[in-house]
């Protein structure tokens, strides 16, 4: 099954109007033509009768005197009457006293045959005795002229109809198609360019205005959903890159940041440092005071770390009780060592827990310097890890 190509509203309205007007014009035109032909036919018959009676009065003495010259003279004024094809004067024996035919040809013999099939006869009497017959043939001159005029007028009406239809359709296009186009253009704009702030202006036609307001309401809802979705997406993105407990970056964020910083440092020939931080005895805190206490310690460590770090440094919780810090570009080894000292001073301050308990976080920090300790992420991570364990062992040997 094939579907017809869609039509424009303008075209549809034009065809519709043209059809209706054509029908009306044709109907009224035919009615007028029919009425006109009927009336004219009546007039033509009256005309023939009138000519016949007029002629019979003038012809009466000519027939009495049997005078063809007088008969022809009596016919003379009747020859000027339009719609007469032939005039014949017959005496009482049926012989023609006078006979005149219009020299011009009948414009349309078919109409003549249809409307004037037989001549009109009038008997001429004198003192009660019939002395002859006057015979009048009609022709189609007047009717043909009327029909011709009717046809021309009909065609003119059709032309006016066409012009009028185009004008009306234009008017309709202005009134109807334009508001629809306005709605369509807003919908298109919204879909194409995501311009959710576009709205349909108030329209002059009630139904279309309602449609426009519904579209506006839909756009309002869409706009709301869109905003909601954007914030949810943002939230999800944040969740994907951050650690839920401490609010620092997570492992993925750490890896991404490291790759990015490595690339930048390689390009610029710059240096930076990587720190690994691991809580000592964290398992014991958990065991003694519960996981809530452990979590509190982790949160506290994170907050303290953040307070020590400079703008451009990046801290992340890599999992469990491990943290990683990427120090900003340009960080030299001495800077890194200074920061490690500051971190140790800050983080290892006591954490109050409950009414009387005091928790003492202990951390080990490993450091890897780019590019001296490694040029790839894996090398740097391994170096930092090794450094951290060295630090842990050293402190263990020192402290206990």
């Amino acid at each position, binding site marked *: 099954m094939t579907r017809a190509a869609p039509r424009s509203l303008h075209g549809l309205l034009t065809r519709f109007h043209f059809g209706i007007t054509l029908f009306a014009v044709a109907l009224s035109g035919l009615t007028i033509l029919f009425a006109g032909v009927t009336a004219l036919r009546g007039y033509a018959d009256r005309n023939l009768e009138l000519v016949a009676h007029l002629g019979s009065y003038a012809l009466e003495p000519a027939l009495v005197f049997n005078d063809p010259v007088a008969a022809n003279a009596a016919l003379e004024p009747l020859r000027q009457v339009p719609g007469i094809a032939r005039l014949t004067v017959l005496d009482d024996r049926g012989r023609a006293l006078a006979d005149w035919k219009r020299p011009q040809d009948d414009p349309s013999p078919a109409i003549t045959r249809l409307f004037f099939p037989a001549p009109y006869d009038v008997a001429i009497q004198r*003192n009660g*005795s019939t002395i002859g017959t006057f015979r009048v043939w009609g022709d189609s001159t007047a009717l043909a002229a009327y029909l011709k005029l009717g046809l021309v007028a009909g065609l003119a009406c059709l032309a006016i109809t066409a012009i009028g239809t185009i004008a009306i359709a234009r008017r309709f296009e202005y009134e109807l198609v334009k508001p629809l186009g306005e709605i369509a253009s807003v919908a298109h704009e919204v879909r194409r360019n995501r311009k959710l702030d576009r709205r349909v202006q108030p329209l002059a036609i009630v139904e279309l205005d309602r449609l426009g307001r519904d579209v506006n309401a839909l756009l309002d809802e869409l706009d709301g959903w869109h905003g909601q979705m954007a914030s949810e997406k943002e939230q999800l993105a944040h969740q994907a890159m951050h650690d839920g407990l401490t609010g620092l970056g997570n492992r993925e964020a750490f890896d991404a940041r490291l790759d990015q910083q490595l690339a930048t440092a390689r390009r610029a020939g710059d240096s930076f440092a990587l720190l690994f931080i691991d809580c000592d005895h964290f398992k014991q805190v958990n065991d003694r005071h519960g996981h809530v206490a452990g979590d509190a310690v982790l949160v506290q460590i994170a907050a303290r770390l953040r307070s020590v770090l400079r703008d451009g440094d990046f801290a992340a919780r890599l999992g469990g009780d491990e943290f990683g810090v990427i120090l900003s570009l340009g960080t030299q080894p001495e800077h890194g060592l200074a920061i490690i000292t500051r971190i140790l001073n800050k983080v290892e301050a006591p954490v109050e827990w409950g009414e009387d308990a005091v928790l003492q976080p202990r951390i080990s920090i490993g450091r890897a310097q780019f590019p001296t300790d490694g040029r790839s992420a894996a090398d740097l991570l391994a170096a930092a890890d090794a450094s951290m364990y060295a630090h842990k062992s050293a402190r263990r040997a020192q402290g206990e």
Partner: protein
Amino acid sequence: MLAPLILFVIQPQVDPAQLHYASMVAGDAGPADRIVGGIISYTRWPTGRGGASVRLCLTGNPRLGSVPQPVVPGVAQPLQPVMRRSSDIDSSVCDAVYIGNVQPGERAALIARLRGTPVLTLTDIDPLCNSGAMFCLTGNAASPRYHVNLDAVARSTLRIDARVLRMAQRSDAP
């Protein structure tokens, strides 16, 4: 209600006349008889005469052949003229006078006497139609024509149908 009654009354009057007129024309009614009959037919007498009751007098010999027997439409028989001497003719005995070949002086006297009386005067010996007769027949017996003397018609008390006057040959025409 009225129409059939009128038809009934008129019908029997029309039929025989029509038949006779046709038969007369078919017969040897001469062209001159038709002209004279036509003129009589289109003349109205103040006395109420007309048709079959018209008394036609003849004086002198007709130039156009035999004794005129005018055929009047609607009258069954042709009118039969009565021969009279011109001195005997007046409106008491004649309604129409056919003046044949008489002396010009006699003719002038007769016409002068009949002037102002309801008598139709016709002659066939006055081609210029200036003798004072109302109608003058000219031409020959086979194709006669007639002239009218409008002055004489105007002076008479008769009324002639204008169509007959118009059909007449003009006096100044040949």
